[in-house]
């Protein structure tokens, strides 16, 4: 049923003690209010904690290597999702488009003043007015 490597229960308690130390660092670090320290202590330490849990509690350190590949393939899909969606979410405009929520009332008044037809302005699926593409 189990893995080839057997440890004493004290071994797992030591791993837990290290995780506790890392946990206190991850809570205490961000209280300093320094961005780089927060990033390292909160997220860097979280990554170390996660790796330790996977390696020693889930026994991935003695698991077949293709299991790492199985888990990594899921992470690659997630990375693909991030890269694929990031431009749409994080950019407010492109060469021929402007995100609808960047539209403001002044633009609407200008379009009306210039006599641009409502169909030229265009409506998105939620019925909100978007900036014409030529702008």
């Amino acid at each position, binding site marked *: 049923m189990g893995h080839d490597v057997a440890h004493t*229960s004290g071994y797992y308690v030591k791993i837990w003690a290290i995780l506790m130390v890392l*946990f206190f660092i991850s809570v205490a670090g*961000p209280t300093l209010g320094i961005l780089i320290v927060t990033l390292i202590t909160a997220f860097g330490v979280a990554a170390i904690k*996660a790796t330790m849990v996977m390696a020693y509690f889930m026994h991935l350190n003695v698991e077949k290597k293709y299991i790492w590949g199985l888990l990594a393939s899921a992470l690659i899909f997630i990375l693909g999702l991030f890269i694929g969606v990031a431009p749409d979410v994080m950019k407010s405009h492109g060469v021929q488009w402007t995100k609808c929520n960047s539209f403001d009332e002044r633009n609407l008044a200008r379009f009306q003043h210039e006599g641009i037809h409502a169909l030229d302005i265009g409506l998105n699926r939620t019925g909100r007015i978007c900036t014409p593409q030529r702008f």
Partner: protein
Amino acid sequence: MGFSKPVATDRSATGIPTGRLAMWILLSSEIVIFGGLLVCYLLYRFHNTEWGHEAAHTNVWAGGFNTFVLLTSSLFIVLAHHAAETDKDNEKAFKWMWATIGCALIFLCVKAFEYTTEIHHGYTAQANPFWAFYYTATAIHAGHVVAGGLAIAICSFDVRKGEHLNRVELTGIYWHFVDLVWIFLFPLLYIAK
């Protein structure tokens, strides 16, 4: 005609027991579920720095205490696995499994306290997109805590009788994953302000 032992219990065509392989496949699908949610959160968080002000209203002490509880529960379930596999002590394994369930209940009680306080102060899922993500992520995670606790409870009675001991390890791997998800949720939702 009696029930025979499931083939998946012992078969090892891939080099590891099929049950354990199935658990890893399940967890890889769970990575996509939680990973997709967290990626969406990160994308919007990068774009909306003002969410940090909303995150400041989460209870870091409660979240930190729950992190401590889940890390400790991970120790308990790995000790249950150790007791069943190495010590051949089923009674001890049973007790460690129920200690893990106790941690799950403490976690859920603290989470319920947090939800109550936050909703009471007007921080509902509709208050702000940050809170929508907060409730979605933590509620899905809490659902996994409940599922993991139930699975451990059901398996514990077989383990006490010396049956299906491999399930201690399988439920343990699942439980560690629940812990892993919280390790990332805690800094994202509570620490990053």
